[in-house]
């Protein structure tokens, strides 16, 4: 199963699609943190590498980064000419389990990259500390300063490492959920079906903010990746609900995929070369 999973990662090296996704994250983060970088330069202070905790609090960032997730998994179930050689050696169940493991592992890598880019683009204004640091505290005190939204409540209630890890975990869970939706959709319909459903869900999530219907956040997985998910406020979607729904959807879709895998027609949908 793990070898089948690793086989997919080996294709990243020669995949323009994956390269574009990862490059887009870097470029977008560079543009988005421009004000913050400038601000840090102007006041002559270093920024601690914890901006990632707040990265998904911005609607456009969320949408673009999750389009990236869809693009990463749009070719699910990742069957190509080379996979036939793998499949004939692993059997269906091990192969499918490997593909599901790949979705989880690819999300771990993808969101690690998004976290890393928030630090990379701030160079040379980055300063390492175990505390939030002056710049983030200033931005949190004056929400919207330097063009970024940071919640004072998060800075006060959480250590930077804890906030970053919670944000990372929530993003990996939602990324996995959307990846599995793409996977299942592609298995049930045509190859475009899963991506269309996932993109529809992402756009719907963003529209909630546009039409200002915060109650619909219970249906919006993208909102479950923000600091609102663990901000202790009355109008926030409870964290227990978020975790329960995410894990339930992941388990149910994973179960359906494994059940469907027994009879699914395994046809190469793209060339392995």
């Amino acid at each position, binding site marked *: 199963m793990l070898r089948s999973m690793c086989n997919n990662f080996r294709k990243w090296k020669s995949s323009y699609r994956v390269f574009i996704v990862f490059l887009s994250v870097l470029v977008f983060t560079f543009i988005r943190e421009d004000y913050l970088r400038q601000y840090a330069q102007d006041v002559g202070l270093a920024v601690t590498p914890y901006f990632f905790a707040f990265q998904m609090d911005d609607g456009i960032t969320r949408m673009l980064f999750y389009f990236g997730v869809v693009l990463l998994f749009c070719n699910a179930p990742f069957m190509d000419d080379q996979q036939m050689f*793998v499949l*004939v050696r692993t059997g269906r169940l091990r192969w499918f389990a490997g593909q599901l493991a790949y979705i989880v592992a690819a999300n771990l890598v993808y969101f690690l990259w998004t976290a890393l880019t928030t630090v990379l683009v701030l160079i040379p204004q980055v300063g390492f500390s175990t505390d939030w640091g002056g710049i983030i505290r200033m931005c949190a005190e004056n929400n919207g300063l330097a063009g970024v939204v940071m919640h004072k409540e998060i800075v006060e209630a959480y250590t930077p490492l804890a906030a970053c890890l919670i944000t990372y975990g929530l993003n990996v869970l939602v990324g996995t959920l959307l990846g599995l939706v793409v996977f299942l959709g592609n298995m049930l319909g045509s190859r475009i079906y899963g991506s269309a459903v996932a993109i529809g869900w992402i756009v719907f999530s963003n529209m909630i903010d546009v039409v200002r219907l915060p109650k619909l956040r219970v249906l919006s997985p993208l909102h479950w990746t923000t600091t609102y998910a663990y901000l202790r406020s009355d109008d926030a979607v409870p964290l227990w609900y978020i975790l329960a729904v995410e894990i339930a959807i992941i388990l149910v879709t994973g179960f359906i995929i494994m059940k469907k895998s027994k009879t699914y027609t395994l*046809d190469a949908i793209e060339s*392995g*070369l």
Partner: protein
Amino acid sequence: MENLIEIQDVVKRFGEQTVLDHVSLSVTPGKIYGIIGRNGSGKTVLFKSICGFVLPDAGKILVRGKQVGKDVDIPQGIGIIIEHPGFLRDYSGFQNLKLLARLQKKITDEKIKESIRLVGLDPEDKKKVGKFSLGMRQRLGIAQAIMESPDILILDEPMNGLDKHGVEDMRKLLVQLKEEGTTILVASHNPLDIEILCDEVYEMDAGAITKVH
């Protein structure tokens, strides 16, 4: 002699199109079976069905007495080339085969190298597969199919992209494998390949199969 592969009245449809139309075929060990037919006649789907990639809508396929899709999902001990051999383009031929061999851990590096040599390639060649010619990829595909010494080989257009010498080498190799007891199913556009190599020849047309000789 017990049949190694038994295809019983298999029907497969994709939407409205019937791609396998009541196909029956018995394969006994140690022979080469040839299947000829135009593009879209159903050869590839038949091969994929034997491998368990595509399950029939009706009828059944038994490999070594086990029903594909019921007793076994993908029958083990089958070497395949179906359609275009696909490899990881940034790895050498040997690295590609080693990664595949590690999935089953049945063979040593030496055996992999021996298979690569058998098809006329150099196992020490560091050239990435992305730089291989079509013929070299085809040869590597054959090495991939034979490296674990499967008792069944399923080869869909194995001579694609090979030059005249390559075709002759492959014919010799397939005959040698047959003599060693491997059962081989070959699909080819080229009637000459089939004529020279095969003990039994079948023709597929619009999903139906008929014995030629």
